């Protein structure tokens, strides 16, 4: 087991190196740079632009820049943002909280709602509820999330005025209730796709479990239905879900980016978009490395959990 973990860790590190290389190359080889935005205003002359380019070290050959960045990164110095000069790690962490709030809330909603729908759908297969749920889940997976977000803002903020039109809190009011008020809409929009997926996963997992022999045996033994459900079926159906959860992270992060864009949520997705727009290379690289690391950790945890939980699977 330990060997497996070590092996995977080594692979993960190698992957991260490749990821950093690819990311760095894409970023720097592309046209435009962090100083383009100043070129049209006329406040900075060509000399000023050249000077700042030199001062930022952007005129060095690409491999030199990469090695310099990489060397510092492994020592913990992820560089400084070109925009506000803050350390990249601090920039990321200041936005991370907001994204985690959003993702966590959406996941909770998705898990609760999705599992409920999935379990009921499995128990009442082919019923009206099941058909509606299936179709509904499919539609939920197919709606462009940002469109759904826009419509939500239109209906709930502009027309009905029930929910605020974006941002995380009302200025001056830092209460938890205010936070929740702002969290509802983006979390629901983000949860849309997640709920559908959890619903479908849960349904098929539950279906597989229900048709197993040991369930029939339990029934034959006279166990009450609800006990069969909770003790046997649910537990065994949930196990694969845990591993799936670990793999959801990249999708969730991507969805969070959409929700943050539409709802002006000050999270990492928003930061990523802005940083790419301003060609804030250090921050973009930082976010890429950070999310890649998170994805790898997520999948590693998922695999480990899977191996722990199911002794039949001991991957070599």
């Amino acid at each position: 087991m330990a060997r497996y973990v070590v092996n995977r860790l080594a692979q993960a590190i190698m992957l991260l190196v490749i990821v950093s290389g690819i990311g760095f190359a894409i970023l720097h080889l592309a046209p435009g740079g962090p100083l383009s935005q100043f070129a049209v205003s006329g406040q900075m002359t060509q000399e000023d632009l050249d000077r700042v380019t030199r001062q930022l070290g952007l005129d060095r050959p690409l491999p030199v820049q990469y090695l310099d960045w990489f060397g510092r990164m492994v020592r913990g110095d992820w560089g400084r943002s070109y925009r506000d000069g803050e350390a990249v790690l601090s920039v990321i962490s200041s936005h991370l909280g907001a994204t985690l709030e959003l993702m966590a809330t959406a996941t909770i909603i998705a898990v609760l709602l999705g599992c409920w729908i999935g379990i009921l759908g499995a128990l009442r297969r082919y019923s009206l509820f099941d058909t509606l749920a299936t179709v509904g889940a499919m539609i939920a997976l197919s709606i462009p999330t940002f469109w759904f977000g826009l419509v939500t803002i239109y209906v709930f903020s502009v027309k009905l005025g029930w929910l605020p039109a974006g941002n995380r809190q009302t200025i001056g009011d830092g209460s938890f209730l205010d936070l929740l008020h702002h969290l509802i809409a983006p979390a629901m929009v983000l949860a849309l796709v997640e709920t559908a997926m959890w619903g479908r996963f849960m349904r098929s997992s539950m279906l597989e479990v229900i048709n197993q022999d040991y369930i029939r045996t339990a029934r034959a033994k006279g166990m009450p239905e609800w006990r069969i459900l909770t003790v046997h079926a649910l537990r065994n159906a949930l196990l694969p879900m845990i591993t799936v959860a670990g793999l959801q992270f990249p999708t969730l992060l991507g969805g969070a980016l959409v929700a943050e864009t539409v709802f002006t949520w000050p999270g990492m997705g928003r930061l990523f978009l802005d940083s790419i727009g301003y060609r804030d290379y250090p921050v973009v690289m930082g976010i890429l490395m950070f999310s890649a690391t998170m994805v790898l950790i997520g999948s590693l945890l998922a695999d480990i959990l899977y191996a722990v939980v199911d002794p039949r699977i001991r991957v070599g």
Partner: protein
Amino acid sequence: MTAATISTVQLAPGQAAWRRFRRHRLALAGAVIILVLVLGSAFGPYLLPFDDTYIDIMKRFAPPLSGAHILGTDELGRDVLARLMMGGRVSLSIGIVAMVIAMAVGIAVGAFAGFYGGVVGAVLMRLVDAVLCFPTIFLLLALAALTEPGLVTTTVLIAATAWMAVARVVEAQVRSLREREFAVAALAFGSSNLRIMFRELVPNAIAPIVVAATLNVAKAILLESYVSYLGYGIQPPAASWGNMLNNAQIYLTSAPWLAIAPGLAITLAVTSFNFLGDGLRDALDPRMNIP
């Protein structure tokens, strides 16, 4: 749904698959809708009196059913239905072409890696894993923000984010099928590696590939809409469902039909492809229980 009838007649695998597919009503509905969308986009523009790029500034923001324009006009006075159809051409083609490219690259990489195994396979799959580390949207945005937007770029970008999953699936399948008897037999008969790869192994992995293909079209259409919505995809004056949504968002309160039409079209198309994929999955291999 009706219960399965027990048949004592042995059906050929293809016929059995077709039977199963037919019973999946939603999948049938999906297939029909897709057909309608494709035909509508392909031939519809010839039936309409309006051109999708003709600007009539005086007639901007005409609501649907208010005049000659069935779905109204947009912010420049162009006919929304015409743009929806032309946009359909673009979005659907991008969806399908991106899928084809993604499948081609994915199958090639996966087949090579699965068949040869060893160092080559490991390196290829590590590369695939590395690219998979980027959340799709991050990767898409990063690439999109750095290239010149357009039809070809958008298609290639979307394909670039989809091929990895295909490669993974194909590699796993080929790797397991490689050891089977028919592959070993083919090798004994002296078939070249390439022949074995593409004429024996891949066709046997066709079921998950077909399913993945259909679902990929759905994903590609959604991704195109998102990329165009952000301004990096299809450029004006060409219409795509995504950039129609992009143009519509500042008029959401004053002319909501501009956003509703493309939004519904995207949802309809993607849902249909998803149902189709579901139906295909059930039809081709009912034992496959991947959610």
